[in-house]
């Protein structure tokens, strides 16, 4: 898997936005690269390094420091479930277990058999007054309950295009 021509163009434009040019462009560039597969491979990291004219060891060092960069396959819909204190005080741990169960994985390292879901426990997401909460598909979901989790999962299963039918987006 390598970067799409569109991604390459976007990455090449990035350095002009920053005073120090290519170094500051590393993370936005890795964002673009991560869009391709949902996670970063050594090849993608090397390609980003090449485009920004940086050492690939350096880029890898950055990519492994930050938790929003993934290095293993993730589900199409990833549950970033907060289990820090305010959410734990309101039942977050049981909800993580429930989510794992419902998407049919046994740990936070796995992707569901249908490829649709994975679950990650994350630190405080800054929405503690809505605890327990999580981030899903770039959106915060508040006041989680098992029923709410079930509904979010079901909605995503239902919106899956049936095999062989063409789909957009």
């Amino acid at each position, binding site marked *: 898997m390598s970067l799409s021509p569109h991604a390459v163009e976007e990455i090449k434009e990035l350095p002009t936005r920053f005073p120090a040019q290519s170094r500051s462009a590393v993370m936005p560039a890795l964002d673009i690269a991560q869009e391709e597969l949902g996670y970063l491979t050594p090849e993608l990291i090397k390609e980003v390094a090449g485009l920004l004219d940086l050492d690939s060891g350096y880029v890898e060092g950055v990519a492994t420091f930050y938790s929003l960069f993934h290095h293993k396959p993730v589900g199409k819909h990833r549950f970033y479930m907060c289990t820090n*204190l*305010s959410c734990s005080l*309101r039942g977050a741990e049981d909800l993580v277990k429930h989510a794992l169960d419902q998407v049919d994985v046994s740990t936070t390292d796995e992707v569901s058999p249908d490829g649709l879901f994975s679950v990650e426990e994350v*630190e405080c997401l800054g929405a*503690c007054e809505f605890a327990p909460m999580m981030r899903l598909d770039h959106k*915060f979901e508040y006041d989680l309950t098992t029923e709410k989790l079930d509904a979010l999962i079901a909605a995503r299963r239902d919106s899956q295009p049936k095999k062989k039918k063409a789909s957009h987006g």
Partner: protein
Amino acid sequence: MAELRGDFGPGPDRVLTEHFGKDGLDTLAGYQKVGGYEGWKKALTTMTPSEVIDEVRTSGLRGRGGAGFPTATKWSFIPKEPGTKYIVCNADESEPGTSKDRYLLENSPHALVEGIAIACYAIGAHQGWIYIRGEYDLQYQMLQRAIDEARKAKLIGPSPFGSKYAVDIQLYRGHGAYICGEETALLESLEGKRAQPRSRPPFPAIKGAWGRPTALNNVETLITVSWILAHGGAAYAKFGTEKSKGTRLFSVSGNVQRPGVYEMEFGRPFRELIEGKAGGALPGRKLKAFWPGGSSAPVLPADMLDTPTDLESLAAAGSMGGSGGVIVMDDSHCMVKAAARLLQFYAHESCGKCTPCRVGGNWAVRTYARILSGQGSDVDLGLLDRVQAGLQGGRCLCGLGDAAGWVIESSMNRFRQEYEEHALHNNCSVEQGALAHA
């Protein structure tokens, strides 16, 4: 539209939240309808930069990011010589229990754009950066739209209000690392590096972003600056105590009836916030403890609810004002478990640069695991004590290490009995009580 859970609308000490809840406040038109950008206009067209700093000095404003440093003093450290300088807004908000910057951004993104413009003018910068945590997707979009609107209306850009003072603002996303909230780690991250704090000196005021003089300020601090320039420093200083002026936003979470982000004048007691605004304990429960300023502020027992909220009273009580994140725990929860969860956080988020933090955090996590699984002993209690002492007192490069130490120390000092039950008798009276209750 943002989902509001907290204070909004007029009230006796509603400064920042007075107009929250009004339709369209997040748009330029809505913000201008309530006097938005008047402070920036006044600063730019009628005041010198040092008069702006003086106005902020009169207000007594101290930073809301955690350290409570006087904002005007911070700005006055920036060298006066011409040359590239930066304002960097810290919108990384990741301190457990803290959500007030998110609340502000969702309600009034233009207030931050305005505050950054004013701060840039005050220190002689022409470029502001907002470092926003990567998980704030909606808030990023709202800010980007506000910046675009302000540029289009020529409130920022090459010639705001027809002046010759160019100011622009750019957003930069974080990627999930608590340490990026620490100001020098944030600068490393902004420069595209692993976020490991820098040793100081040089301080960011001399050598900050990309080696240039930089003032870093929290979201709430800069939004308060907008209010101060519009209404005057003296009007702001009427609120609060002698040393902690004004109001602050407290995000109250955990075991209360009405979690939310509440604005309150400094100096009133936590009881008013937690039992009044947030509704106190859930039916049948009793409050047990609260972290008054994010998880890094030493925990206090519920019998100290009458402690006033100003920074001096909190320091005297053995804690700190920190980020204004108030985490409340009731009697159905175990303090050892809570502390263990927080240590897991600090160990996970340690950048690994200093030995006590890198090694001590993981030791603490393993020790807590032993204690909670019933394998503990008094040796483990002694070990936790040594680890917390090692984390504190300037042995670490940044505040993360101290904070981890404070969690252990304060929870052990205040709730020693729970630690002994677990470590010495493999017993948790709290959870047994909770079970009996259920």
